[in-house]
């Protein structure tokens, strides 16, 4: 029996009625199509520049399930190429990070420069006996690379739009993380990884816009930290979507970063006037608010807590969480250390807030093994009728941070990409132009 064609993917996302077909959270064929249509085509976060400052510095990561090396070349540029030898396919680098002039495959000693080019191999003379052999044709496959204010992105799609267009209006908001200080940002050294047996889209949509879960899922952590469960103010908050990316935030001027430590509280108070001059009042009053952000498809962060993470897909029911902490380069060391601890103590496998999430996402994924269970569509209609949000914010903005509008925009982008044969076929759902 041949399996039915899962296309078109738009049938799983109903924007009018607000539901999602559960098949997209467990079906192996749909997952395989995601690797092709989404992860091999989108701009994916691969590194912060500060992780590879010197020539020869490298780190290894994944673009979808493709293992890649991110490397600082001799010319100062950044190369991103497949971590798989074109001879027999073995990995050419097994370290998470380091500094190397070349990457040598353990299998037959093929060696590659930090631009991915093939430099030589063990017993090279045997190959040289063949006049048709051309070393330049056997390098590691390079991706397109662009850097946005310290963040390094890569894509394997030649026809993908440039990163600036890919970000759209989202870029205006990104400044609140990446451009509050003239010195720029850096990642705290090292990272944290753990495995959650869930579909990658559950954590991604959660960061796209799910302020709704905070007050309930994280009730225990909120009470311990702040004395009371988190309460969203729908009248002083919004959900914004642009190019399938999502940003939900309060804008009542409340700043929760002081929960991290007194040193952080002093630092943010001292920085505030300069940030207002630099970014203007609209963005300044959002900084430090309860907010969550996801850049399509799998790069997310929390403003205020400064945890940055990638949801690495490892199968329809398995996700690896890779997490880092972002700090201003010019911040005092004490502040950097306190932000590192605050991010780790709240959002990491041991985090007093993140600890609550894994089980929800695992259980939401596992439930779909039930054939009757999976027939029922999931309801994504919260705050569907929301008014447009404040007009001075770019992107598609809806009033209230509790709602499903951002999540649905993510799934619309998902369906658009899954059904599109090429980037030119992907519709632009943003009517509002990105602010310069």
């Amino acid at each position, binding site marked *: 029996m041949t399996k039915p064609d899962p296309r078109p993917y738009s049938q799983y996302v109903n924007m009018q009625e607000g539901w999602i077909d559960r098949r997209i959270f467990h079906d192996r064929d749909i997952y395989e199509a995601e690797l092709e249509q989404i992860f091999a085509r989108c701009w994916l976060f691969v590194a912060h520049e500060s992780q590879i400052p010197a020539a020869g510095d490298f780190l290894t990561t994944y673009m979808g399930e493709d293992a890649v090396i991110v490397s600082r070349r001799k010319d100062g540029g950044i190369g991103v190429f497949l971590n798989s030898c074109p001879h027999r396919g073995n990995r050419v680098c*097994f*370290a*998470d*990070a*380091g*500094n*190397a002039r070349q990457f040598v495959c353990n299998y037959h000693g093929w060696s590659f420069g930090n631009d991915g080019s093939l430099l030589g191999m063990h017993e090279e003379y045997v190959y040289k006996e063949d006049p048709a052999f051309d070393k330049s044709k056997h390098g590691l496959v390079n991706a397109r690379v662009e850097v946005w204010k310290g963040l390094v992105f890569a894509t394997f799609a030649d026809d993908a739009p440039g990163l600036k267009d890919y970000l759209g209006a989202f870029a205006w908001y990104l400044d609140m993380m990446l451009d509050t200080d003239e010195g720029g940002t850096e990642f*705290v*050294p*090292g*990272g*944290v*990884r*753990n*495995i*959650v*047996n869930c579909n990658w889209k559950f954590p991604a949509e959660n960061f796209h816009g799910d302020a709704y879960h905070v007050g309930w*899922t994280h*009730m*225990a*952590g909120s*009470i*311990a*930290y702040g004395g009371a469960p988190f309460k969203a103010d729908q009248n002083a908050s919004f959900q914004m979507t642009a190019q399938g990316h999502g940003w939900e935030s309060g804008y009542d001027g409340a700043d929760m970063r002081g929960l991290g430590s007194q040193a952080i509280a002093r630092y943010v108070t001292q920085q505030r006037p300069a940030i207002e001059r630099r970014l203007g009042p609209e963005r300044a009053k959002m900084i430090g608010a309860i907010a969550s952000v996801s850049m399509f498809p799998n790069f997310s962060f929390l403003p205020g807590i400064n945890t940055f993470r990638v949801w690495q897909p490892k199968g329809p029911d398995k996700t*690896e969480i890779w*997490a*880092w*902490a972002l700090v201003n380069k010019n911040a005092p060391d004490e502040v950097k*250390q306190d932000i*590192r*601890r605050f991010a*780790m*103590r709240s959002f*990491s*496998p*041991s985090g*007093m807030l*993140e*600890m*609550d999430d*894994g*089980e929800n996402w*695992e259980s939401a994924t596992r439930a779909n093994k039930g054939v009757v269970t999976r027939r029922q569509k999931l309801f994504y209609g919260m705050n569907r009728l929301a008014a447009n949000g404040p007009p001075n914010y770019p992107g598609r903005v809806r009033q209230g941070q509790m709602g499903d509008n951002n999540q649905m925009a993510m799934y619309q982008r998902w369906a658009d990409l899954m059904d599109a044969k090429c980037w030119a076929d992907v519709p632009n759902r943003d009517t509002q132009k990105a602010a310069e």
Partner: protein
Amino acid sequence: MATPSIELIHEVEQFLYREARLLDAEQFEAWLEMLTEDIHYWMPSIQNRYRRDKSPAYTQNSMALFDEDMKSLQLRIKRFNTGVAWPEDPPTRHCHVITNIEVALTDKPDEYRVYSAFVNHRSRTEQDEDMLIGRREDILRRTDGALKLARRKIITTQSTILSKNLSVFL
């Protein structure tokens, strides 16, 4: 350096076994009583690096899985005791197995360096199962006659934690 007495080794072993039992039984207030006020409870996150690499697999200032003081540990217990810590309800079943205990004297007469290995097995609801195995390096300090834990460094064998959370003390 002199070798520790059999009595001291026995006392340290009993201390670590009691600690493990309190953690298994979720008696966290009693557990906090076993720690000094200046406790540093630390579980660095490990990076895989080549042997030739001079950079260490972790430092004091790199990302960690735990980097706690008394205040932050108390906050964790407070969270657990709110009655709304959903991922611990129904409760997790823990078993801490502590072994390979070695005691060394230090240049401070009231402090001992203690090495141990642990297996933490936990299971909850129907089939959830997680196992963490690793080593610990502790400093125990004698305060008013009783031993207390002043420093703990925890190194597990996993560089990627193969669990959905670390809702556990090791």
